[in-house]
């Protein structure tokens, strides 16, 4: 189920058109990856610190977009906070890293088109957090 959320978030992000839609899809993507990451953080796993770093950056990325002036005020409900996910930690890490690569690219594309300084700053900051997640997880990702 959780992997499906990641795939769906990637789909929404790819299909988003216009600044407001991209911001909305980006915010949703960060929100959707949060429970997926927290569910897989295990001190016994080699990816423990990388997953922890990624989860923290995901929350920071969501917050960066959350205060963007062009983010639609009414948004779809966030994904459930926890649940039994499918796929190994490595597979989840790879999927989230892939989503973040897409996130960083879409936000970087959207930034120059933003007329409002707040929107531009939000796009840049969120893109940076997405890159950090990718950096933390890419060591184990299939990318």
């Amino acid at each position, binding site marked *: 189920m959780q992997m499906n959320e990641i795939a769906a978030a990637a789909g929404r992000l790819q299909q988003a058109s216009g600044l407001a839609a991209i911001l909305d899809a980006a*915010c949703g993507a960060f929100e959707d990856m949060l429970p997926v990451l927290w569910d897989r953080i295990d001190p016994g796993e080699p990816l423990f*610190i990388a997953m922890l*770093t990624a*989860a*923290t950056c995901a*929350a920071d990325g969501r917050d960066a977009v*959350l205060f963007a002036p062009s983010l639609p*005020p009414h948004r779809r409900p966030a994904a459930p906070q926890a649940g039994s996910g499918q796929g190994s930690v490595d597979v989840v890490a790879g999927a989230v890293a892939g989503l973040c690569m897409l996130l960083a690219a879409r936000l970087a594309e959207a930034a120059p088109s933003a007329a409002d300084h707040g929107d531009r700053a939000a796009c840049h900051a969120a893109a940076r957090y997405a890159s950090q997640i990718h950096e933390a997880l890419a060591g184990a990702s299939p990318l």
Partner: protein
Amino acid sequence: MSRATFGDFLQAAHDGLGPPSGAGSYAPRGSVEEVSRSLLRVVTVMGRYVQDMTAGLDGIGRRARPPLHPWARACLQVREALSNAAWFLTDGGPNRRWPPSPAASPLARRLDAVTVSLTTGRDLLQTHFAPGAGSSWEHRSEWAVVVTSPPVTRALLAEIALLSRRIAHQGAGLALSPPAGVPGSAPERRRLNAACQWLWVLDTSVRAAQQQEPVAAADRDLMAAIPVNDLPPRRVPGGGEPVAVLCEGAITSAERVRHLAWVAAQDAPWSPGMSTGSLRQVARTSTVTSHNCHILLGTLAACTARAGQAQISEGLSAAADAAGRARDRWLRAACAIGQITTETEGHLSPAAIEAGDLALWTGRLAYADPQWTLVSGPAHPGRPPESLVSRPEDVPMAVAAVHQACETLAQLPQTEWEQISAAAQVGRILVPTSTLSSDYDVPRPFARAPHDRVEQLLAEYRGVAQASRQAATAVGEVAVAIQASSRVLVTARQAARASQPTRASKTADHADALAALRDPGAARESAAVREPDDTPGPIEHTLRGLGVSRPDLLTRGAELDRAGQRFLIDATVGINRQHKRPSAVMLSKTTATAALVNNALASGDSRAAAMLRGPQRPQQAESEAEREP
């Protein structure tokens, strides 16, 4: 480079006085007038220390004053003794100030050195305070509560008494020395001797308190370890540092985090430093640090087991387990903090930045990779045990580093909790509206966090605090057992708890410590180190002066001196209370009388003070302490 500590200046004061009496004492030389002036300076600075401890009590009426604990009574008697000593040293003389040139007399120079050391030491303690409203003092560091704690106040009084005793011995020796070699009029000599007699009374007062509640060796260590309130500079590991440097770096970073977090907790709730960015950074890096401590403690347990230190190894294993539980609680807090936000995201407080450094320093200790970072990648082989501890002597150093980190992790949740709680009260804790139930209709992507969400978050931090405290306590027990340098943190925590009411108010009179002295609940142990009463009495002194060296004769002379002491004290205690006491100057009128009285006062028998002070009814000592001579 480590920070200056109070112990540095205390040691300098003792060193300034020269070797202890009986171990190569100085021959009395110099001018009585010059020594009196220098002694007045010492007495004045000692008086300032005691004034710091007793200031608040002056506002309490004598009749309203509750029965005092022995140390509180000693505090007032010490103030009285110093006040009287100062009076004798100024009596009839001009207002004495520092002369334009250094003193010529050896004893005066030694006393001046003591004055400088004690003054600098007090300045060091004062760096932890700033003037507050009225006569109160605001805390400027987490050490302030330790400085004013009953254990440190007791230890400080004991040190003042020890110095006074040594000074009295040297000063009286000069006052009663043959006039040919020592310039000084008879009245000047009498006044100097009378001042020294009050210093003996001071020592006796503290001894009486010590007998009822001895100063613990750990409390003296704590007092000596109080650092100047000057944060060491930030350092980050460059890579490839030896273990000793990594331990030192981890300790410095842990101290910095504690101080910066303490400062942040004093900030207003709308401070930009209180942001989810900072809270997340602290939670994430503290999860990593506690994980690193878990690994390090496990490695240390293996090292000590191999060295045959089974008990220490068991303690370290238990501490490793506790650190693991603390990590799990930090992880939960990190998850919880991911579900809220503030409008100032992105801003990192100095404490949060330093918490990241602490994770880095402990990680470099825990892992084999000399370039390890928090984003190094998935696999991190641990540092081999022989690399962490190549010799058994290295264990305390590594334990100290882990203990410092764990103590920091135990204090952080409290300051974080205070910040979150304060921010919630002013509506700064927000949540994405997408995470709220459909009952909420908020036309914004974010909204003020509902009360139950804030409560859940605060409950997570209470859980972290409890688990982290258990880990710090477990490591602290090992640190005490192996005499690691960090053991002072255990005493500091006990001292801070003894001053809990003071900490709650965030401001303190030093006199709060005096009030707390009425509560004898602090840890105690009988480990007081006193100089032996090795000052020769008048008969033994005379025998030695005559060149007598036969041990049996010197022993007999010492016995006669002790008998004389007892006789004088018993006789003084027994006389009519209405009889007007002679002044201390009268008791120093002749050299013979002065020597006998000095010998009785130096005995440490608390009854001997009655020769100067008169027999006391209960509570009279405290009342008299307020009398200006």
